[in-house]
């Protein structure tokens, strides 16, 4: 599903943010990418989102080679990905329903699909009773659920989560991760970038550890290594 072969990314003349990284993730896998700040995690996410281009090496995601991908193709490619961020990034002037529906409107879904799919996914994240709430009226956990619903409403192949529990208390973090886990169980490939040690150690998933732009370890059912 995700294939990185000898990928290097340098910004200007600095030392590489990502250096000769190779990583293979199968369809349906759940992978944590851990490491301290500056380890290259964010660069990895940006490369996968095609926000940045690799300096060398090749990246293939969901059958699409990102190197040399035409600019026009990028939106279509991104529709295969769902993304959630630490800061939720909800539209503050729209209610829960509209925030999720927004993702469907953007890709031009017909309204009859939208009317069916948005309530469906809101139910899945447990927000059926919050359609009309504004983001500011919600707790952090609820906001992340909305973000998750928005990321998944278009049924992406892959869910990319960049520090999804970074702003949440431990209990809420567990709930969000449990939710992500259920989506993974239904077939969505999941890649979570985090430095939440408790969660990584509790879930016992595949753990890729990064340090100074290098992948230093890659373990099945791994634990969090202080790199």
């Amino acid at each position, binding site marked *: 599903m995700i294939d990185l072969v000898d990928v290097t990314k340098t910004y200007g003349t600095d030392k590489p943010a990502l250096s000769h990284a190779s990583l293979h993730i199968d369809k349906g896998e759940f992978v944590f990418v851990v490491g301290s700040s500056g380890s290259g995690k964010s660069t990895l996410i940006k490369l996968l*989102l095609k926000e940045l281009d690799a300096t060398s090496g090749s990246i293939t995601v969901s059958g699409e080679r990102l190197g040399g991908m035409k*600019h*026009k193709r990028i*939106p*279509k*490619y*991104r*529709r295969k*990905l769902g*993304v959630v961020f630490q800061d939720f*990034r909800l*539209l503050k002037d729209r209610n829960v329903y509209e925030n999720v529906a*927004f*993702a469907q*409107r*953007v*890709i*031009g879904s*017909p*309204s009859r699909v*939208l009317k069916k799919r948005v309530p469906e996914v809101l139910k899945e994240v447990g927000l059926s009773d919050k359609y009309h709430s504004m983001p500011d009226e919600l707790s952090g956990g609820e906001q992340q659920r909305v973000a998750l619903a*928005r990321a998944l409403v*278009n049924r992406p192949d892959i869910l990319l989560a960049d520090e999804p529990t970074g702003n949440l208390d431990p209990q809420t973090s567990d709930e969000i991760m449990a939710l992500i886990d259920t989506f993974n169980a239904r077939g969505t490939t999941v890649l979570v970038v985090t430095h939440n040690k408790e969660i990584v150690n509790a879930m016992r998933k595949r753990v890729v550890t990064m340090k100074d732009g290098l992948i230093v370890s890659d373990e099945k059912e791994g634990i969090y290594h202080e790199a």
Partner: protein
Amino acid sequence: MRPSTIWYILKQGFKNIKRNWMFSVASVLTMAACIFLFSIFYSITTNVNYITRQAEEKVPVTVFFDEGLPEERILEISDIIRQRPEVENIVYESGDEAWEKFKETYFGDDSAAADGFRDDNPLVNSSNLQISLNNLEQQSELVSYIEGIEGVRSINQSEQAAETLESVSNVVYYVSLVIIIILLLISVFLISNTVSVGITVRSEEIGIMKYIGATDSFVRAPFVLEGIILGTIGALIPLGAFYFIYHEVAGFILRTYNVLSLSIDFISAPVIYRTLLPIGVALGLGVGLIGSFVTIRKHLRV
């Protein structure tokens, strides 16, 4: 594109305008001022051109004859000239008629002053032929033909009058062109400013849209629409207002000048709007488009 998508983009476009309504109002007003001035200058130039043409048509080529040339010979020449294809109409005015007309114009009721000339018509040799033409471009051709006829003393042409009016109209034309171009640039700048404020306000939303997989055109469309709406409203308001103002002002000038018995005539508002309306709307639309495109290219990295 699906109807729901079009509807969505439309709503977003209007939302942009509402969200920074102060900038929107400023752009619309500048645009309106610009199109209003354009309408003024456009109608002045077209009317000056129109009046020039009228004047050219009314002021005929006037032919004077050698002293003492008998009237029969003049009428003979008149018949010859009438055969020419350029000639639309030809009128003979005898020396006496010329004098009567002159007296009326310059002495008016003061017949005593005119009586001083009683039996001594000073314009006795002013018998002339007044020729109006089908096509003014053939004037010089006709003039050189008439010059060749024996007995012709001199020819007065309307060219000079026409040239004066034409140069006035040219000055109006160029001055207005420069002013309009400056105003258009200001409008482009303001619309671009308004759109860029909208883009800044919505930068977060734009970022999210991109992650979700919105196409470039989907992200841009509301902003392009915003520019078009601002430009078009900015054009329609002054065009509507000017229609009535033009009608009133033209009527006022005609009433005032008719007292001075100057026979001028203006193009009617509906006729002038046949060209002014499409040009004005196209200008507004174009400026709106350019304004938003310039900004989107500069500020909207998609």
